[in-house]
């Protein structure tokens, strides 16, 4: 998957779960859960949306699911 496609999937998922924030304002290298004030259910929802749209399996924990960059990199590496 191309990086721009991956980033779009990630940012759309975040925007959908936290409609009151501007995803462009988030630091892609810092944990987004705190920046966007997401709880663990919100985080699951973000991962679920990404899994459905990118057709990949996301890890349950770890750096790949904490930052926008981590999610994007994971999708680029594994996404179809």
């Amino acid at each position, binding site marked *: 998957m191309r990086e721009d496609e991956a980033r*779009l999937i990630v940012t759309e998922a975040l925007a959908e779960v936290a409609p009151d924030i501007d995803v462009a304002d988030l630091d892609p290298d810092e944990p987004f859960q705190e920046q966007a004030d997401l709880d*663990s259910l919100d985080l699951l929802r973000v991962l679920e949306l990404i899994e459905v749209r990118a057709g990949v399996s996301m890890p349950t924990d770890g750096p790949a699911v904490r930052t926008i960059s981590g999610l994007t990199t994971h999708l680029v590496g594994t996404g179809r």
Partner: protein
Amino acid sequence: MARSTADSTARSTADFTMPSLGADMEAGTVLEWLVHPGDPVRRGQTIAVIDTAKAAVEIESFVDGVLDDVVVEPGTEVPVGTVIAHIRPAAAAAPAPVAPPQHREEPRATARTAPPPKHEHVTSPLVRKLAHDEHVDLTRVHGTGPGGAITRDDVRQAAHAPSTGGRRAVSPYARRLADELGVDLSRLAPDGPPARAADVRDLARTPGTPTPARPPAPTTTPTTTPDQATARRREAVAALMTRSKQEIPHFYLSATIDLEAATRWLATVNAGRPASTRLVPAALLLKAAARAAREVPHLNGHWVEGAFRAADRVDLGIAVSLRDGTLVAPALRSADELEVDVLMGRLRDLVQRARSGRLHGDEAADPSITVTSLGDLGVDSVLPVIYPPQVAMLGLGTVAPRPCAVDGMLTVRPVVTASLAVDHRASDGHRAAVCLRTMTALLQRPEDL
């Protein structure tokens, strides 16, 4: 109580009254009628949305029949007990008394995973679930069933139709966002893939004029702005919490619970599962709390007219923070009896609907005990303020690795601090301690929860 009460005497219609959706509710505002006079209604069918100051709540018909007339129009606030509509029961030709329901409806068979969309026609939960699964927007489906009811075939047909009448397909979320942003969806190009949130945001940035293809105006108009709704929820919380601290002699106790076994079990269960079916630690903690509340019934119930009344079920209130900074605490009904996977599904569904402002009547009714979890914010513990007329509330801090002594050795274990606030009129320290001890014990055997 989830349903409005009925009063049918010699007349052939039954009164549908503003229900009481909580001990502190004195009045409610009709936000929207989901059926129109002349439409058939089924027992248990959602027929209106009521704003209770705490939340928007869907209310259901108590009887099969036909909506005879609407007495209270959307936007009007009336006291609890006011007749808001009349329903002609199905057996109106030989009118049998319609008894007020003595108990709330049975738990729903399936957990829903999305807010029920606004719909003009009658739909069943099965149809809504299918529509959700197939990503079909029910407001765009033409019902071919009795009274314009949308059938499963209608949904299947819509799911496989390339487009509806030259109008662009729009995802339910995008439609909701368009409502919130005041975006006219007819400005979308008629062709193309189903419109997503990003398309709506693009439209919101570019002012446009409505085109002649604009869909018909909705039959109801919003009666409160989001700011007003926020202010009202804040007022409701303020009134309730003030009453709590003025009336309830709180005492508090807490326990640090070893979650080594629970954390391992969760990791095993979640490995290989898609995100949609994974469990969060809160699901286990809530299940354990509900079981503990069942085993210590003196904490599970209400203080009414100077005495404690034990509840006959554990309806676990979940304090849900909304993104506007306010709070609602809807109930997970009979939480102690739910399998953990089912509880998790219900929890996700409940929180999502609480945040989208559409709860079911039975969820807005008074829980028997409430839990607040601030675990995602890194706090060690929280000492809650009890929701009257409940007599206890559990606060959960962050699940985090901490140094602790195990078998005489210093080690690091994931732990959580569970704090219980208890109404001293209803209970004493011993029972509260038993409750926390029970919860701790249950969490050491997560596979049995």
